[in-house]
């Protein structure tokens, strides 16, 4: 609904409302404008000293902009929170940041190319071993109940894991380079050795995170699962289910993770929600 004002607002307020309103998501813009028009009108029609009025006006203008920014950030959070796009974008941003740092640390572009070529060669040599160890020590994948064959969902999952793994390896490679850079001028051989060891250490940690993150996602839409809830009683481990359940916000299914592997089910179970239509 649009609200009328008994007297118009000053020009500055109207311009500010129009400009800050552009930050607000379209579906909430009219309501936001009406709320702030009323607040500003009441602010101007309340008896205060001129100085207090000016100070309040400046403060409220700042709050108005922050409120609009909050609504925009909240809208992005609702849209992208837990999505695979956000995960990939975050990893890409991290990679760009460490790459930029590497550029800043190395002055000459010629020197940088040669330096990177050697590092990437060494890291490529270590990467298959790191991937093998991380995959072998990762917890086993879930058993799936009610699962119907969804070739595209399977393909999406694998594609997401591959992209994530590549970005994680690139990030750890660049990070290990940046960390050992100060040492490289003094002890080049030692720095090279530390770089490889740092790459192996960081990439093992990062790949473990990558596999863990993959398990915590919906098998259909790849969004992060939410609202973890404890189920069962720990005192009846051998007789009943005891563990944690997480659900997909979109209603695609539930992931049941047992507390210990001997209770009821050995592995985590992905229970797909079967819609009534299907």
């Amino acid at each position: 609904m649009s609200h009328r004002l008994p007297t118009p607002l000053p020009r500055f307020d109207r311009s500010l409302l129009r400009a800050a309103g552009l930050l607000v998501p379209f579906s909430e813009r009219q309501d936001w404008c009406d709320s702030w028009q009323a607040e500003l009108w009441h602010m101007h029609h309340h008896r205060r000293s001129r100085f207090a009025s000016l100070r309040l006006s400046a403060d409220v203008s700042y709050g108005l902009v922050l409120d609009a920014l909050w609504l925009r950030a909240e809208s992005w959070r609702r849209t992208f929170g837990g999505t695979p796009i956000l995960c990939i974008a975050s990893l890409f941003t991290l990679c760009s940041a460490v790459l930029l740092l590497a550029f800043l640390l190395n002055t000459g572009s010629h020197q940088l190319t040669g330096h990177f070529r050697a590092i990437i060669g060494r890291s490529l040599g270590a990467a298959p071993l790191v991937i093998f160890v991380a995959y072998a020590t990762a917890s086993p994948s879930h058993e799936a109940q009610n699962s119907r064959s969804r070739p595209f969902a399977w393909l999406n999952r694998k594609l997401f894991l591959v992209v994530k793994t590549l970005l994680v390896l690139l990030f750890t490679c660049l990070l290990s380079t940046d960390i050992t850079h100060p040492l490289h001028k003094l002890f080049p051989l030692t720095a090279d050795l530390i770089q490889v060891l740092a790459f192996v250490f960081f990439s093992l940690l990062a790949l473990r995170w990558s596999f863990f993150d993959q398990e915590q996602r919906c098998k259909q839409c790849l969004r992060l699962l939410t609202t973890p809830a404890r189920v069962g009683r720990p005192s009846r481990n051998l007789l009943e289910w005891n563990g944690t359940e997480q659900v997909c916000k979109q209603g695609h299914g539930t992931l049941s993770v047992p507390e210990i592997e001997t209770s009821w089910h050995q592995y985590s179970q992905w229970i797909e929600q079967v819609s009534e239509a299907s």
Partner: protein
Amino acid sequence: MPSATPTRLSHSAALILKAISLGYRFGLDVMEVTGLPSGTVYPALRRLERDELVESKWEPEDEAFASNRPARRYYQVTRTGKAAALAATERYPLLARLLPEKQA
């Protein structure tokens, strides 16, 4: 969805929630009684509303127009918010003394 356990609030969020529970229903009123800047109050009101501790409604327009002023959005504490305000008062005992009750 409101949580079963009372939400833990920051000091400023607890102050704002307490102010609303004492009858300060508008953003400007809350700013004036708490002394907090608008950049803190309005985003905090949004967060409290998102967490279902407060709810906002529009005043009836004819009622506002009878007083020759535009209708405003006002806030009131929900049942979950009341529990959170009580928990916050226990956590920050000075809150109850900081804010006077709104005169009708």
